[in-house]
């Protein structure tokens, strides 16, 4: 846009006029690191023209995200002096193990977002990001024998393109099935769960997560694999 500054440009990538959930980190990164990122990106692209090697580009994005999402200590909001720990009472090969992710997967045809938000598309969701942050956490039950094509994904907090192509990038249902078949785990619980990680963290911590824990315990889960996006 005429007269637009570089800062306005990178700000627009994070829930602005040019939302891009893979590169929204550039707003967090700040103006100077973002400038360096773009310059390096162009240089690496120039290398790719000759080598075809994309690994440097992947690493550039990873390193950019790592730097942008690593907060200074004083800015870390959720900080605890100690954490929970429960040793396994028996080998995993004798246990019923469940899967829970924050990827926003849901069964096609069923609601995919908290009722108070309506059924926004992924793109619409990025325009109502504040509503997700205040909404009641939303949990979807996913039968683990559900085929990939019956599984949708809605989560305006991250770039869902990989999750849409292959659920196992964030919700490793097929790999868990294999672990059960191999005997690494005793059993894979027949219902996996997924929620929209972009939600009220206070409500999640104080109200919903404890209820979800009781729910999966009642379904016989003895251990769980949690996959945050």
């Amino acid at each position, binding site marked *: 846009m005429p007269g637009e500054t570089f800062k306005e440009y990178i700000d627009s990538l994070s829930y602005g006029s040019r939302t891009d959930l893979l590169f929204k980190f550039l707003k967090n990164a700040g103006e100077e690191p973002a400038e360096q990122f773009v310059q390096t990106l162009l240089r690496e692209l120039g290398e790719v023209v000759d080598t075809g090697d994309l690994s440097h580009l992947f690493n550039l994005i990873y390193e950019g995200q790592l730097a942008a999402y690593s907060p200074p*200590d004083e800015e870390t909001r959720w900080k605890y002096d100690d*954490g929970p720990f429960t040793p396994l009472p028996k080998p995993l090969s004798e246990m019923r193990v469940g899967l829970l992710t924050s990827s926003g997967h849901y069964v096609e045809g069923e609601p995919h977002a908290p009722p108070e938000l309506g059924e926004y598309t992924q793109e619409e969701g990025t325009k109502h990001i504040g509503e997700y942050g205040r909404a009641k956490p939303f949990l979807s039950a996913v039968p683990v024998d559900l085929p990939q094509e019956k599984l949708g994904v809605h989560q305006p907090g991250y770039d869902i393109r990989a999750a849409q192509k292959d659920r*196992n*990038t964030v919700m490793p249902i097929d*790999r868990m099935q294999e672990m059960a078949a191999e005997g*690494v785990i005793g059993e894979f619980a027949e219902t996996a769960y997924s929620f929209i990680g972009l939600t009220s963290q206070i409500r999640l911590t104080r109200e919903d997560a404890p209820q979800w824990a009781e729910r999966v315990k009642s379904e016989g889960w003895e251990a769980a694999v949690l996959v945050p*996006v």
Partner: protein
Amino acid sequence: MSNVFRGRVVVQKPSRTVFTQHIMGRPMSAPFDNERQTYVLREALKMLETATEPDTSIVLPEKYRVAL
């Protein structure tokens, strides 16, 4: 989970965490990289079984790649 969030996560003292050097939104792997998915999951299950104290974590050394 992706190591890009490690700074935010370790201070929360989760009991066991496997971090991958993967781009956000692809903590297990790139699409259809079944080998990497299996590897990451095996590491997670191994940690689930062998960790003896809270706040146990590892950063896997492998970099993000696309499936060939």
